[in-house]
């Protein structure tokens, strides 16, 4: 039994040829984890915005001026966007059986990745430029 445990197991995700559906699923996980990490900051921002009119205006000013805060806010938005888009795809698949063929699943995955890139680029321009 001990000898068996020494046997190597080949596993290299980076060298694996995953379809776009698989890559999207991994990004969905990453975006979910990122959202979880940023959640505390977003709750702090929300709390600050509700505490008084002055705090709200100062938060708006910080969001306009502080690059770090802007970046966190942007990451929250794009993470939420990606997670939601893939969530919609999962709902379509689970409840209506849409995208369960490799071809249709691939087309749907490319479509929402494209939508994500367009909206994320738009948000980037709006927030940073």
């Amino acid at each position, binding site marked *: 039994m001990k000898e068996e445990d020494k046997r190597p197991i080949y596993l290299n995700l980076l060298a694996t040829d995953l379809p776009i559906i698989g890559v999207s699923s991994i990004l969905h996980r990453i975006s979910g984890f990122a959202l979880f990490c940023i959640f505390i900051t977003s709750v702090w921002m929300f709390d600050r915005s509700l505490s008084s009119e002055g705090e709200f205006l100062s938060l708006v000013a910080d969001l306009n001026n502080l690059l770090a805060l802007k970046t966190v806010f942007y990451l929250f938005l794009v993470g939420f966007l990606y997670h939601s888009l893939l969530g919609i795809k999962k709902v379509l698949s*689970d409840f209506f*059986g849409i995208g369960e063929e490799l071809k249709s699943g691939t087309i749907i995955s490319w479509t929402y990745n494209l939508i994500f890139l367009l909206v994320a680029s738009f948000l980037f321009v709006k927030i940073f430029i």
Partner: protein
Amino acid sequence: MSATIPLEEVKTLTLNIYRFDPGKDEKAYMQDIEIEVPVNKDLMVLDALLIAKEKDTSLSFRRSCGEGVCGSDGMNINGKNGLACVTPLSEAVKRDKLVLKPMPGLPVVRDLIVDMKQFFDQLEKVKPYLITKDEDPEQERMQSPEEREELDGLYECILCGCCSTACPSFWWNPDKFLGPAALLQSWRFIADSRDQATEERLDDLDDAFSLYRCHGIMNCVSVCPKGLNPTEAISNIRKKLINRKG
């Protein structure tokens, strides 16, 4: 007058192969073996391996029928699982290089040979055989053509293991998640009009891991050498489980 036999035009192909010999290697390594393949013929990956084995007889891999029926020579070909005997070099080779590794996630016995025990243990759990409770009929159990059609896309599975070993959910939980191959077999018997153990089969799958670890990545569909769709089979079982609860 002497007739000249035209020499076959050949080119060099580098095979980058995963090597591990439990008798002498502490850990696995990659080895380059250069072979010559004809330019005008499209060989299969298995043919290339057989040529390489002539150069290095210690090279080990499983093979049997050589035509995609037995499912013995499943391996990772340039990052994608497939059967070496039905994968043409024209499809597999990238930049004159062919990287061959064992199927991911299972212990390597030697070189490209993996221990399939985990895979077959999971298959055994779904009881891949017809279960009947009635007395055996005098003749065979009948099915209408429509009932028989329900099994198309399911019975063709050759259990090569390409799908399950390409599934990230199976990599992380190979002892708890049954994997696409076993679940396709499960649906094959749930969908069979002659089977009388549907409820018991569904009961066995109704936990957090056995079935629900599938996240619809569809790598199983992407690699299946028989063009089957385990994701759809898993989805059908899931619907059946949800409907019986509702």
